[in-house]
């Protein structure tokens, strides 16, 4: 294996002979390794490939005799995507899985690859990587043809060697013959999907054995020599101000305590051990902090009304309008309904953790002054925000991605990295910060509460017009270089976050539009998360004062809530029209692939329980982001009339995400969507009072008071029907299925009970109240 070491930015060592292909994982164009990218002989027979400046989206596929390495800013997020991308590479190279390794998510070694988010790693990255591998294979073939003295068309490749006319030559031998640096060749021939050997097979995940024997190293295992331990002490509420620290001497007298750090509202402690830090941060053994209470948030119980109140909107956006007003006005059969979903949290299993090493001066060789280890989805964005927070230039900050527990979007990990950076800068030593569960539950950026006003007209042939008005806070408040107040520590320091976004498109409005054939209108009212500089202003005013909890990107963004409203309302319309809900979907969908996933459920649907008596089945459909993967889901459940408890018994998902790379890995992803979707539909809600979140743990003796998530004995049988489309590009599968879950569940509850639930979560209390209603 080659050792990856980089004496300066945008270079890497490529071994004694190599084929290096530059490409972009963003898919926004071909980032060519143009003439500025050159291979050159370095010291010790090693070859250095300079990644040209001005090619900001460059990744590299590097073949040497020792290793095939992908240098990528994309990061593994616990989805097994690395294995799928590997399958794509080795397929083109006619090799086996296990021959490829990744260097991922390091701002020193990779340049900006954007975010690993939104279910796009395979969809975008896979296509680019396939072409890069095909480019490399073409060069290998050229070398083999020369070595064997034959035309390239006569070559056969397998198991790391070429054969022609009874003679063979190995890849290793060919790679030793010299270094070639190539731009992505978009015309390099790729394998015919019919010849695939590795793609389309259920390769086991490369990372799992190490996760089952504790040899895999998570972010949480990174502890550089001399690292101190930090803890943060948060305000009692979002808007609390003017902290006064007491019992400082008591904290400092604890063995191992190094410092108590305060910068405005940011407070933390640093010690030589986790336990000493914990004791210094605890109000019973360490510092105590007195705060001025801040303004209350909009009361949780008032949210459905308050979200619709124009006083809480900074903008209204019409996303789409096919001219439905006249149809609605002329119809004599118009239905309306209102839906609501609450704040929900990512709830990563391992409380957010980070390590930062901020030095007093830049390293003379690398220029790096601050090194941060984080589970972030975007190393480059985090680098910029941390640089601003610390008062350094981005070039002086290195962010290294290390895998954390599954995040399902933008969770607490970026904020935790900022905490570590501030504490490290304050004490001049590396600091590891481990959040407590209450830090995570109370302060991670949540998925937003959303309200929906649905209106539609029915004609003799089905739905003739459809209107969806959403009321939603932002689904994107990721770190930004422009405003370090996008990081929690920055906001606590008194810095302001970014202005709120100008649109809901592909954010809180994701999957608000439907892909049915009838005319539709989608309007979004954008909610002021905090006080702004004027009635129609999206810019935060100082001091930052929240109206609702901070919200951001959580698995499928607004799609979960929007699809709940869409697919529940569709069911209402089908029942009102006396039509079969699945048949009406099939009749309303113009796209044959959409129809195919719905039809794949037909046998199951036709054999469903008849409904009533507390047992029922429902279906839902969506095409993710309107243009990506197609999902239709069947849910069968029963409702306990005595307790109000909903038990989901069986789920069948029909799924078309184009070319299937790894069927078993894909099924695992879909199953995860199903289970998390049930959990969010039935159980999950962030609770708060005043300006303070009160659901600070996973569970308590009072059901539902904390952030309760699904348990093992609440998980149903799950069947996945994969519709493989070898001739179609692969589409992401990390998020499409979750959006179908709340609608299918609500529709099944309606079939079981005759009651239409339009507010999530469907907790026993809520169900029982309605049953007794």
């Amino acid at each position: 294996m080659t050792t990856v070491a980089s004496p300066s930015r945008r270079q890497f060592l490529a071994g004694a002979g190599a084929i290096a292909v530059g490409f972009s994982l963003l898919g926004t164009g071909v980032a060519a390794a143009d003439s500025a990218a050159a291979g050159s002989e370095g010291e010790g027979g090693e070859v250095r490939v300079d990644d040209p400046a001005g090619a900001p989206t460059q990744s590299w596929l590097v073949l040497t005799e020792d290793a095939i390495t992908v240098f990528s800013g994309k990061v593994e997020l616990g989805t097994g995507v690395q294995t799928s991308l590997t399958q794509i590479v080795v397929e083109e190279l006619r090799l086996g899985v296990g021959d490829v390794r990744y260097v991922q998510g390091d701002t020193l070694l990779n340049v900006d690859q954007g975010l690993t988010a939104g279910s796009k790693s395979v969809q975008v990255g896979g296509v680019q990587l396939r072409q890069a591998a095909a480019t490399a294979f073409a060069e290998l073939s050229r070398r083999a043809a020369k070595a064997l003295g034959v035309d390239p068309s006569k070559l056969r490749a397998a198991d790391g060697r070429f054969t022609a006319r009874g003679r063979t030559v190995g890849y290793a031998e060919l790679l030793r013959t010299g270094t070639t640096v190539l731009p992505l060749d978009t015309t390099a021939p790729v394998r015919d999907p019919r010849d695939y050997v590795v793609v389309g097979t259920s390769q086991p995940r490369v990372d799992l054995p190490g996760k089952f024997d504790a040899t895999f190293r998570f972010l949480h295992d990174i502890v550089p020599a001399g690292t101190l331990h930090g803890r943060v002490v948060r305000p009692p509420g979002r808007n609390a101000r003017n902290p006064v620290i007491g019992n400082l001497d008591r904290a400092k007298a604890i063995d191992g305590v190094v410092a108590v750090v305060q910068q405005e509202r940011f407070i933390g402690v640093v010690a030589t051990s986790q336990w000493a830090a914990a004791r210094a941060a605890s109000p019973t053994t360490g510092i105590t902090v007195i705060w001025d209470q801040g303004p209350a948030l909009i009361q949780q119980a008032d949210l459905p009304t308050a979200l619709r109140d124009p006083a809480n909107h900074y903008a209204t956006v019409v996303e789409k309008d096919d001219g439905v007003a006249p149809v609605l006005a002329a119809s004599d059969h118009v239905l309306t309904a209102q839906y609501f979903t609450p704040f929900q949290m990512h709830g990563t299993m391992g409380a957010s953790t980070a390590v930062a090493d901020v030095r007093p001066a830049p390293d003379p060789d690398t220029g790096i002054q601050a090194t941060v280890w984080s589970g972030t989805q975007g190393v480059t964005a985090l680098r910029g925000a941390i640089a601003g927070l610390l008062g350094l230039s981005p070039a002086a900050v290195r962010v290294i991605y290390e895998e954390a527990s599954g995040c399902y979007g933008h969770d607490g990990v970026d904020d935790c990295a900022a905490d570590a950076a501030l504490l490290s800068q304050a004490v001049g030593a590396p600091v590891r910060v481990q959040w407590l569960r209450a830090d995570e539950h109370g302060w991670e950026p949540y998925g937003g509460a959303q309200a929906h006003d649905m209106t539609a007209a029915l004609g003799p042939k089905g739905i003739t017009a459809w209107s969806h008005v959403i009321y939603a806070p932002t689904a994107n408040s990721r770190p930004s270089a422009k405003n370090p107040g996008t990081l929690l520590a920055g906001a606590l320091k008194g810095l302001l976050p970014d202005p709120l976004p100008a649109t809901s498109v592909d954010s809180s409005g994701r999957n608000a539009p439907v892909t049915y054939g009838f005319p539709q209108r989608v309007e979004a009212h954008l909610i002021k998360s905090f006080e702004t500089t004027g009635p129609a202003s999206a810019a935060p005013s100082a001091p930052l004062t929240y109206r609702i909890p901070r919200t951001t990107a959580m698995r499928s963004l607004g799609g979960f809530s929007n699809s709940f409203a869409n697919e529940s309302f569709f069911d209402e319309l089908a029942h009102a029209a006396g039509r079969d809900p699945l048949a009406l979907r099939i009749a309303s969908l113009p796209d044959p692939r959409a129809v195919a996933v719905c039809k794949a459920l037909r046998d199951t649907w036709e054999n469903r329980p008849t409904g009533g008596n507390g047992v029922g089945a429902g279906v839902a459909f969506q095409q993710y982001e309107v243009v990506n993967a197609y999902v239709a889901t069947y849910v069968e459940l029963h409702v306990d009339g005595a307790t109000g408890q909903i038990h989901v018994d069986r789920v069948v998902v029909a799924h078309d995400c184009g070319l299937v790379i790894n069927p078993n890995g894909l099924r695992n992803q879909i199953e995860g969507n199903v289970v998390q979707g049930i959990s969010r539909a039935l159980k999950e809600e962030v609770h708060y009072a005043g300006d303070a979140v009160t659901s600070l743990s996973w569970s308590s003796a009072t059901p539902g008071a904390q952030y309760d998530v699904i348990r093992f004995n609440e998980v149903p049988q799950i069947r996945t029907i994969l519709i493989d489309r070898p001739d179609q590009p692969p589409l992401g599968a990390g998020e499409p299925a979750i959006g179908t879950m709340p609608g299918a569940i609500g529709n099944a509850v309606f079939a079981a009970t005759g009651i239409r639930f339009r507010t999530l979560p469907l907790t026993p209390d809520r169900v029982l109240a309605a049953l007794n209603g």
Partner: protein
Amino acid sequence: MAMPTRAVRLNGSEVTADYESAGTGTSQASEPLLYWLRDRLDQHGPRFGCGIAQCGACTVLLDGAATRSCVRQMHTVADEADIRTLDGLAAPGGEPHPLQRAFTALQAAQCGFCANGLIMGSLAWLESRIAAGNNAVPTEQEIKDFLSGASPDNTRNYLCRCGTHTRIVAAVGAAAKEMIG
């Protein structure tokens, strides 16, 4: 101030390390077993998930019993206690334990952060059943109730946030079959 010391058997080997402690008698408090194992004895299996014994990610076996090491204070761990962690679960030659093999065979993880608790918790449960002479392979429902903290011999819930539950239940069942033989 000199720190107290604890000597235990960790995965079959005698180990000794200091631990931090404050107060005496009923007011004594000390470093959690989790930090002691991770920060002083280089164990990476047990993980900090919640720190309040609600998720199971920190599970180790203490004298054969599944123990939430995040809330177990070191002064309450006896000298000569027998501690087993995921780090030492494979046989000395590296041969994976049936639970490890089953988790891999069924690809029973997504991020894998919770795997430690699920494997070590199930290990303690299955071994104690077998030791008590119960050689019945647990049913799917028994495994689900065990992992939900809703069984007669376990009231503590195990969390998986990625939604890999059905595979985990199947893996525990497959391993149980092999362990019972």
